[in-house]
């Protein structure tokens, strides 16, 4: 039984309840008991209470990352459930959703059960696995969605690979309706991407690296929107990176098609320029795009076209990134920089703090039908206390994630999570 906790004088922002005031939060038995404004009368408190002074700091519901790679089982040299969830907690996340591209692939309830058990045994935060859409992520036959759903999967995706066959994608969107779970689409037309390793354009020509055109993402976004319209299945577009994708999703939403979308901090923070010098830590799929795309993604976040900010935390081992650019794997280790990078959107006036926190808490929780991302009384005490004034420099050597692959090395960010509480357990 965890101790009761009083968090005093923090600036609480909880978009799920429209809370935005300075006040206290009382936690009992690992659950939120009460949130109240500073001026309200304190109730009698028991003696064993641990008090955390959050004066001058912000308190948010624990962040929910609906797109994470924990790499276990199979790629424990890149990350484990233990290290990945610890990195999450460091970054202010209290719930993460590991993608199924492990080895073996999470395409059956046994693997799902393994991940959930391992998370309960060794993890530091809540883990909601995402199951594969197709068996082995081969894109040929749909996987056992129902059984995985019962085992604890909250969504389905072949992330890392697209479902190239339109008929299979149609079936997946249709079949998933029985369980009311989203199908998360990694939008990439593989033949059109043609083995590219960065964004296609002047820079890829200059660096002599094979480009991936924006259209490789956009044709699939368009296809999947049409299939969502056809089937009525819940479509969620992963890692939106281009202006064209934002435009397509905006139009789809205007027409009432059931589609949601996420982007990641790297798509609104940096451009393809980060690849210059053949920096393999800036190799990611979809690739970093242009300033025009960055602005469109920010605009999409602002007008609600893009619902969610997810990390697409994709840790890789140092040796794997220490390769020729075209041979190095794609991915950015994102859990420990996501909040700081996202808070820049508030600084730049793109989003209000409440909007931003919504996109990192209650919105993804609702899409996934999980009871997270809120400070409502009775819910698990998952929250993060953030010192917004404290500046820190990104130093991959100090990541707790095994993945040190970040293009943000040396960047100065504000918004350091000081304390993360998961189900009443304090992590400093």
């Amino acid at each position: 039984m965890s101790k009761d906790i009083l968090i005093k004088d923090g600036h609480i922002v909880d978009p799920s309840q429209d809370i935005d005031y300075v006040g206290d939060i009382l936690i009992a038995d690992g659950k939120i008991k009460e949130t109240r404004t500073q001026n309200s009368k304190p109730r009698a408190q028991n003696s064993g209470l641990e008090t955390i002074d959050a004066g001058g700091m912000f308190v948010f519901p624990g962040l929910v990352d609906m797109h994470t790679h924990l790499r276990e089982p199979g790629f424990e040299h890149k990350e484990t459930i233990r290290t990945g969830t610890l990195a999450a907690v460091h970054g202010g996340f209290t719930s993460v959703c590991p993608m199924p591209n492990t080895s073996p692939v999470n395409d059956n309830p046994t693997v799902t059960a393994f991940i959930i058990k391992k998370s309960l045994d060794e993890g530091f935060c809540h883990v909601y696995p995402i199951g594969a859409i197709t068996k082995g992520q081969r894109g040929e036959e749909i996987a056992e969605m129902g059984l995985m759903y019962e085992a604890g999967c909250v969504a389905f995706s072949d992330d890392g690979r697209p479902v190239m066959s339109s008929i299979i994608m149609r079936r997946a969107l249709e079949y998933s309706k029985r369980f009311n779970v989203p199908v998360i689409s990694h939008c990439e037309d593989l033949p059109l991407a043609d083995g590219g390793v960065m964004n296609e354009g002047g820079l890829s020509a200059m660096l002599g690296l094979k480009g991936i055109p924006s259209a490789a993402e956009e044709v699939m976004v368009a296809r999947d929107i049409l299939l969502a319209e056809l089937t009525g299945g819940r479509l969620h577009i992963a890692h939106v990176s281009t202006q064209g994708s934002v435009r397509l999703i905006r139009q789809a939403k205007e027409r009432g098609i059931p589609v949601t979308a996420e982007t990641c901090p790297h798509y609104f923070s940096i451009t393809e320029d980060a690849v210059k010098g053949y920096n393999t830590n800036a190799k990611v799929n979809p690739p970093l795009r242009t300033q025009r795309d960055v602005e469109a993604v920010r605009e999409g976040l602002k007008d609600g076209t893009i619902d969610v900010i997810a990390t697409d935390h994709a840790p890789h081992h140092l040796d794997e990134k220490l390769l020729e650019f075209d041979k190095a794997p794609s991915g950015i280790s994102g859990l420990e920089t996501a909040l700081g990078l996202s808070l820049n959107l508030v600084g730049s006036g793109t989003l209000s703090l409440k909007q931003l926190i919504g996109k990192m808490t209650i919105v993804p929780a609702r899409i996934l039908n999980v009871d997270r991302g809120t400070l409502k009384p009775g819910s698990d005490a998952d929250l993060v206390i953030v010192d917004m004034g404290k500046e820190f420099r990104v130093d991959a050597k100090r990541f707790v994630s095994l993945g040190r692959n970040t293009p943000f090395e040396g960047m100065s960010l504000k918004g350091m999570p000081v304390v993360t509480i998961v189900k009443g357990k304090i992590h400093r």
Partner: protein
Amino acid sequence: MPKDLVGIKELSKRDIGQVLDTASSFKDVLRRDIKKVPALRGKTVVNLFFEPSTRTKTSFELAEKRLSTDVLNFSVPTSSVVKGESLFDTIKTIEAYGVDFIVIRHASSGVPHFIAENVNASVINAGDGTNEHPTQALLDAFSIIEKKGTLEGLNVAIVGDIAHSRVAKSNIYLLSKFNARIRLIGPPTLIPCMEDYGVEVFYDMDEGLRGADIVMMLRIQMERQGRSFFPSTQEYFKYWGLDMKRLGLARKDALVMHPGPMNRGIEISSQAADSPQSVILDQVTNGIAVRMAVMYLLTGGEKQ
């Protein structure tokens, strides 16, 4: 001069001028009976070729020997799919041998940069992926200046698979630094996005060749066939092959260049390749002089 030659992009106009001036002294050396000078005696160079190459490797090796360096050849067959040592370990091993130069040819763009960052030896890019082939551009510039006296203001038509050609890229960077007017000619599927370099793009070769001072042909790589960049080599030659009739559209004193090896009848006709306007064999000779100059100058270069 920097320590390494990773690309033309990274060189200043002054550096390039220095290489070309020095190359002319080395060309004199190549005319002597004894073509070898002791300039780099005691230095060791390793030719690290991860991609098969006969011409470039031979040219480098000759240049190295004529500078009196000790030459090591380290060829890695690309056909080898066996997962062996990583590139990083390979170059660290080679550095531990105590070499002064690493000449690197690799199928992945950016590898020379990667090596240069990780070793103290001077790194010379002998072609990386579809990025650059700087010594080829330097020898092309040298060959042009030898005949035309200058690069400034010349109309240079580069014809063929620009998108996959490191030779074209390096030439574009070099020529644009010297204010040549560059025209890229080829099928739209093989022309990359290079507006930043002030190039003019022509899909119609006849139009692109008009008034050209230099016609630089590129090799069509046979592996592009069957991938729908163009339907057949016959059709390719019809629209983008250089024959005498087309050459007639360029200036009367236009030079015909080709980095070799040529596909006669596919991108260039034998008559054009062997015409008096062709400087293709001069390019070969000049390649040795230019590579000697590069190595000589890099020994005095400073680590960036």
